[in-house]
């Protein structure tokens, strides 16, 4: 059992959903990321998605596109992200999910990546642009290494696709809150409740919801029906705005704290 499964098991007993934080590793610099993760953890994040920057991030909105650009300019490679994970793991047991586009992974090699991920304390992977139909070799490599594989399901996904996502996912399933790319939105899509219900009918895995969640109020309302709430662009915006400031980690910690305040225990 990975740290991811243990986390959701513990939170289930506590009747509380997880706050999942996405950040692009290497933004503003590879050396800054471990401290940003520590700040997120102090602020109340339960799981970290470490984004691997990519030259052509087609699933991302402007905020994470810019983060990706900055991280690449700072010299961040997939191997750098693995080293960053190793540094985080030295002093924290927070679950780490590698969040990446497919091409850097293919270039690195599936088996080499799976081995290196384990060595550096990573618990699982999510490949944004890998469809379940093409996933077999990847699933095999990750399973061999004991890593979780998280897949995305969207409001447009057919029943057949939801079943495949359930079949191939371990740790949790990532539900995309609406059609579109990453980025903050004022209103949460009404389509998320039906998707949560439908996904629950095909899997017992924990369900996390992401894309567009940026306020404590949204975290609270999504957390009321899901097992995890993912916030990405809001953190990246805070990193962008405070990149040059010595208050960077304090700002990130405060934002995590504010968002975590939305995660009230369901039985309270």
């Amino acid at each position: 059992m990975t740290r991811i499964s243990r986390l959701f098991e513990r939170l289930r007993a506590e009747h509380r959903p997880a706050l999942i934080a996405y950040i692009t590793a290497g933004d503003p610099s590879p050396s800054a990321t471990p401290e940003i993760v520590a700040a997120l953890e102090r602020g109340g994040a339960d799981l970290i998605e470490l984004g691997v920057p990519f030259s052509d991030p087609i699933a991302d909105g402007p905020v994470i596109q810019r983060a990706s650009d900055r991280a690449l300019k700072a010299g961040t490679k997939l191997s750098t992200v693995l080293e960053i994970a190793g540094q985080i793991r030295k002093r924290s047991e927070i679950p780490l999910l590698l969040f990446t586009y497919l091409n850097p992974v293919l270039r690195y090699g599936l088996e080499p990546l799976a081995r290196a991920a384990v060595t550096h304390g990573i618990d699982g992977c999510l490949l944004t642009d890998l469809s379940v139909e093409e996933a077999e070799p990847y699933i095999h490599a990750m399973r061999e290494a004991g890593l979780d594989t998280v897949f995305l399901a969207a409001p447009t996904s057919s029943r057949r696709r939801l079943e495949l996502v359930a079949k191939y996912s371990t740790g949790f399933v990532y539900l995309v809150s609406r059609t579109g790319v990453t980025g903050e939105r004022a209103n949460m899509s009404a389509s998320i409740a039906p998707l949560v219900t439908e996904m629950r009918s095909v899997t017992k895995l924990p369900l996390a919801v992401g894309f567009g969640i940026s306020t404590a109020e949204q975290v609270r309302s999504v957390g009321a029906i899901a097992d995890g709430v993912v916030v990405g662009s809001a953190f990246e915006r805070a990193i962008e705005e405070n990149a040059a400031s010595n208050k960077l980690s304090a700002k990130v910690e405060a934002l995590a704290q504010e968002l975590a305040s939305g995660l009230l225990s369901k039985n309270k």
Partner: protein
Amino acid sequence: MAPLEQLEQAYLEARQDPAFQDELKDLLANYAGRPTPLYHAKRLSEMHGAKIYIKREDLLHTGAHKINNCLGQALLARRMGKKRIIAETGAGQHGVATATVCALFGLECIVYMGEEDMRRQRLNVFRMRLLGAKVVGVASGSRTLKDAISEAMRDWVTNVHSTHYLLGSALGAHPYPMMVRDFHSVIGEEARRQILEREKRLPDSIFACVGGGSNAIGMFHAFVGDQGVKLVGVEAGGTGAELGAHAARFSGGSPGVLHGAHSYLLQDADGQVALTHSISAGLDYALVGPEHAMLHDQKRAEYCSVTDQQALDAALALARTEGIIPALESAHAVAEALRRAPSAKGELFVINLSGRGDKDTDIYRENLKELDDPN
């Protein structure tokens, strides 16, 4: 993925529907101007050796082969009830063809174009606007075709219920490479029939430029089963062999995934997509269409590259011996044919001239300054 599944299903149904095929055929004939001539370039042949025929896709409405695919996909969009069309464009030819069919069918049209390409192809930007399309500049990444595709894909996943993404090359995720090939396969079907009528035999070699590879795959498809016919795809050699100076994916790239397709990709050691360069915006893309990768790996087609300068020289040669000014993309195919022609006396060549050169007038002027001198 769901929109791709719906698109595939709609396309497979339309392909079997005689009413759909009849309407497309009528539009291709009476609106776009098919069949295009297969022209025997006598002077060029005499000067260079091989007997050279030119498939005149440049004579089609809007000035390039792109209209074949646009008419097909616009009919499909209408059939699917999509009222909003988005497209990407590199050279602007696909953008103009998309704006044209949207005007024809009364559909809303948004074209994404890299800011660098907008600068290089100002005339086509204006043509799109003249046709009622909205041209959206893309400032991210390299500001060229790949960034325009990324932005169009972001729009599509956001507005998928109302919108059809009219992808302009044999790229992207299934069913696009298949569908775009099918809509262009009329090029090769006509050329095969025409050359058999004229020469009573099949050609020895066929040349086509390859960016994403839509005109080439449309031309090659009818000949794939004819083992004696050499299929030659010509990529952009740009200004040199180093990464970033060209778009020669077969010689300079390796297998990778971009925009939902697995093929030969120009990338760095870490799997980041490399920047590309070509004098022709339409060939300036880091990934080659996946069916070309298959033909390459099966050794059924061969791929080579031609530099910016060789393409310019070939364009000038064609203009001055045959009175045809080619698009810079198509000039790459001409260059390779002319390079091989002297050692191919008695052989029969067909060059797919995918587009005409009007859109490239500014680039020709920049590169042929001596002709621009008022004295």
